[in-house]
């Protein structure tokens, strides 16, 4: 029973982390831009999936507002599946894209618009998801022309960011182990030695207390790394 709860909790946590990274990290789509436009968009309960108004203008991050948001329609190389990107400033804190040139990006997108007969393929760097049920759109960050629909792009930015996250986790673990080795364990040793003195002085009373201590130590022991199975 506990095993199921434990694993359910771990899987939920993992899904949360992976989902968060998948939403936030940049991705690139190879598409052809078919249309660019603005749309009055009411933002309500899905506000978490929208960014701020143009940076430098009045603060319009309040829930239940209507904002004029730029959109970019695009079609994938298969000619059927389409994608709608929003084009919003991200503001200055989260997600940390520090994008404040939505108008310029919209102009670039309009410039790169093309039709079926004479396609101009572009790579749209974006983050976020398309969730039609909540009217949620990925936010386009950068648009660059590419040679053709089959061009291979290497996600260098994601490689760097994920390596950095792995490095930070590795260092945090090293730091924690060092802290335990140099600070926690000696302190426990002191407790143990002090306890031995008490033990020698009052055998009968300490005999009972030692059961408590042994249990406490066993509990501490559960925090130690176990040999891998």
């Amino acid at each position, binding site marked *: 029973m506990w095993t199921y709860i434990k694993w359910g909790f771990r899987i939920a946590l993992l899904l949360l982390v992976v989902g968060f990274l998948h939403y936030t990290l940049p991705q690139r789509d190879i598409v052809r831009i078919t249309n660019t436009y603005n749309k009055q968009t009411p933002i309500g309960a899905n506000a978490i999936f929208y960014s701020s108004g143009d940076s430098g203008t009045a603060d319009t991050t309040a829930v239940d507002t209507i904002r004029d948001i730029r959109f970019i329609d695009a079609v994938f190389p298969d000619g059927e599946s389409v994608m709608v990107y929003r084009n919003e400033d991200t503001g200055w*804190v989260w997600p940390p894209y520090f*994008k404040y040139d939505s108008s310029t990006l919209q102009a670039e997108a309009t410039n790169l618009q093309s039709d079926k007969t004479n396609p101009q393929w572009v790579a749209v760097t974006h983050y976020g998801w398309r969730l039609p049920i909540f009217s949620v759109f990925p936010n386009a960050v*950068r648009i660059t022309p590419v040679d053709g629909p089959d061009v291979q792009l290497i996600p260098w930015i994601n490689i760097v960011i994920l390596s950095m996250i792995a490095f930070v986790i590795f260092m945090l673990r*090293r730091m924690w182990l*060092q802290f335990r080795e140099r600070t926690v364990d000696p302190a426990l040793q002191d407790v143990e030695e002090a306890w031995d003195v008490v033990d020698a002085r009052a055998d009968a009373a300490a005999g009972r207390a030692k059961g408590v201590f042994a249990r406490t130590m066993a509990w501490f022991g559960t925090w130690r790394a176990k040999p891998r199975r």
Partner: protein
Amino acid sequence: MIIVWLRLAGIIVIGSTIVYVLVSIYSRSVRRERLENEWDTDPAREGLPRDERDAYIEAGIEAYRHSLRKRLIWLVYIVPLVAISVIVYVVN
């Protein structure tokens, strides 16, 4: 606008300071452990009084205080600023 920038600056300063403190504690601890191990595993120093061991370690820590390694921890403050500048330049 200014409030937003101040908020960003505040977050960076607080976050970097936490990282700086953690990294300096860790780095010093690693150095001290290495000094202790150097002394303890050196056969020539066996049986020397404990005072000398302490003095050796303190001297080593004092040298560490002025080392390049300790100064490099300031990168914790510089790297985020450089990263943000690069992102701002590339995205916009």
